[in-house]
């Protein structure tokens, strides 16, 4: 797998990035505080040193995770990280217009995503490539959004994975409505109950839509798990710019449970999310999970984190890396040998190469796509506009290059 040294970062002298490093003292303090916070409140099953911690409450939720299952989670995370790094690289090469890296958030996404059942529904924000992977969405289908060939490519119903939502917080209300529907249809109340999970970040918690989603879900007992990935930074703003108190504690004000989990601990994320989904299935939702993690890369490929945080912060979080601790645990307990790790790395490289090959050959959509599917029912106004534009284009075909 890629080592921390291979993570993408701005090259010295490669533009304004390297010379503009000037985080304010407040940003530095907030960022460094985020490296130590969360300790006592954190639910953790696998610490950064790869040691398994016992939890009377949550161990039963991962009693089926043997060495083989843990190897699977490890493989998921490595593949997703490798594909994510490829996304960054392809943006740098001009093959993608933008990429939204998930580096550092693999455990939060794989752990929570693997907790879902096929009958559950997930509503992502726009960084949930790892969750998409767990829902069986082909990573290639994520590329169109970032290459600019489509706005969303996958079949949401087949995968139980809603389209990405870019407007911050909108999807929290949409997910709440969906979960209300699950309840209205009588699909909640026993072991086979359905549930919904919705992903958003620390910044989104300031949005009115998130507040309203909390209110609605509480009032209607909606089976929805609010999965907040607190990656410490909303672009340049630290979490303390969003909240005075730890985010998970907000749930109390709405009348449902909130819990903080180590977002870099895939086992804990799996256990806690399974528990929360279980609560929802049985009609005891909603639940708020704050996955305490760290955005190890930029907000997007257009962002320059050196302007607002010190690299010291990243160095501290590297010690809490979500993949390393699983690798150490597997190695120490004999759950995997070097051959396995090598094979996973080879698989990840092949996965990325395949992705890359696909991306480079993605055709541009035809111009009539502009007009397609604006409405479910035919629109004479749009049909006329399309005819006019295609006739205009046809004029170039007859009269020469455009």
């Amino acid at each position, binding site marked *: 797998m890629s080592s921390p040294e291979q993570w993408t970062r701005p090259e010295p002298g490669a533009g304004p990035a390297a010379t503009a490093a000037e985080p304010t003292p407040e940003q530095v303090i907030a960022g460094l505080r985020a490296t130590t916070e969360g300790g006592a409140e954190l639910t953790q099953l696998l610490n950064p040193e790869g040691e398994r911690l016992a939890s009377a409450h949550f161990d039963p939720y991962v009693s089926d995770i043997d060495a083989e299952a843990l190897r699977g989670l490890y493989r998921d995370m490595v593949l997703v990280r490798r594909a994510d790094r490829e996304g960054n690289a392809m943006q740098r090469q001009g093959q993608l217009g933008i990429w939204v890296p998930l580096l550092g958030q693999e455990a939060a996404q794989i752990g929570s995503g693997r907790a879902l059942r096929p009958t559950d529904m997930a509503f992502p924000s726009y960084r949930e490539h790892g969750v998409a992977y767990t829902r069986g969405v082909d990573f290639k289908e994520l590329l169109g959004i970032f290459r600019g060939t489509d706005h969303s490519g996958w079949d949401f119903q087949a995968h139980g994975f809603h*389209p990405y939502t870019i407007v911050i917080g909108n999807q929290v209300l949409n997910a709440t*409505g969906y979960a209300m*529907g699950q309840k209205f*249809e009588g699909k909640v109340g026993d072991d086979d109950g359905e549930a919904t999970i919705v992903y958003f970040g620390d910044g989104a918690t300031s949005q009115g839509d998130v507040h309203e989603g909390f*209110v609605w879900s509480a009032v209607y007992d909606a089976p929805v798990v609010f999965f907040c990935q607190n990656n410490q930074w909303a672009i340049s703003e630290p979490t303390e710019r969003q909240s005075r108190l730890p985010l998970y504690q907000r749930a109390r004000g709405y009348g449902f449970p909130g819990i903080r989990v180590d977002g870099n601990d895939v086992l804990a994320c799996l256990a806690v999310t399974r528990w929360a989904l279980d609560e929802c299935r049985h009609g005891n939702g909603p639940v708020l999970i704050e996955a305490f993690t760290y955005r190890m890369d930029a907000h997007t490929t257009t962002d320059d984190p050196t302007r607002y945080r010190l690299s010291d912060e990243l160095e501290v979080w590297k010690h809490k890396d979500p993949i390393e601790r699983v690798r150490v645990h597997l190695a120490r307990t004999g759950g995997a040998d070097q051959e396995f790790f090598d094979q996973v790395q080879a698989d990840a490289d092949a996965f990325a190469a395949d992705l890359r090959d696909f991306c480079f050959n993605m055709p541009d959509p035809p111009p009539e796509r502009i007009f397609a599917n604006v409405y479910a029912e035919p629109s004479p106004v749009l049909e006329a506009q399309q005819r006019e534009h295609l006739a205009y284009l046809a004029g170039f075909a007859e009269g020469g290059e455009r």
Partner: protein
Amino acid sequence: MAAPVRSTADQPTSSVQNLTIGKALNLGLRAAMEADDKVLVLGEDVGKLGGVFRITDGLQKDFGEQRVLDTPLAESGIIGTAVGLAVRGFRPVCEIQFEGFIFPGFDQISSQLAKLHYRTQGGIKVPVVIRVPYGGGIGAVEHHSESPESLFAHIAGLKVVSCANPVDAYWMIQQAIRCDDPVLFFEPKRLYHSGALKAPVDTAAEPDPLFASRTVRQGSTATLVAYGPSVKVCLDAATAAAEDDLSLEVIDLRTLSPLDLEPVFESVRRTGRLITVSEAPSESSITSEIAARVQQECFYSLESPVLRVTGFDTPYPPSKLEEHYLPDLDRVLHAVDRALAW
């Protein structure tokens, strides 16, 4: 889900009832809920109270609290959850209490409701109806008398309609609910309970298509185009003008997005003169769009410029001034005079 209990106490024996717009909407909603148990009504005070205008009166009693939801007081929540319910397969009908309160929900309307079908290349349908009481003339405080329909007609992915009489109220609300696209349904609130507009509604009749305008009075001297509350103003103006031997044609647009302007073009080619009437501010509005399209399609038929009689480009004024602001019979006839004198 509990089966709806149909109230049979006041069932008419004939299929024809004499109704106000408000009662016609109420019966239309009831018919839609009976026809499809995926239809939900949600909004503030729509349950026990029956809505502040009583349009949803009795629905919660008969269909239950899981189909008629008194929601928390937040418009983005109403619309955002309706989007999610629609994704799940429901057909939510949201009530926004007054048009001036729709703006907290504007984000969900423009960012999610209008775009999900396009974003997913048709993978997700969002058949949500948003009912919006709109327009002035009720002597209300601020935010209770506005006409924001043009803002929504400007957003691709939404359909926008407005009813002007009880027959349309009864049928159009049902057609909007059956439509697979999101529909903003603007209701002329000051006419809800107008006895003068009461009309026989045949619930067994075959309705006109939803997205079609209609000529509601034939004429040959000039064409008036209006929608919602302004249709009555134009019909009254045409009646008054007839006493001066002026024959005014009146077209009720009914649909604001998509616009159905063929009947308008056909009319203007005969009359040569067009006056558009709306309570909304005129700049960048439905009336501007009509003027642009008519000059494009009917350039050589026009005997005078297209004139507009509208609200002013100001915020809605205090109610003691609204009679100046709202287009009335005199302002419409003044515009007719100007067009004829061109």
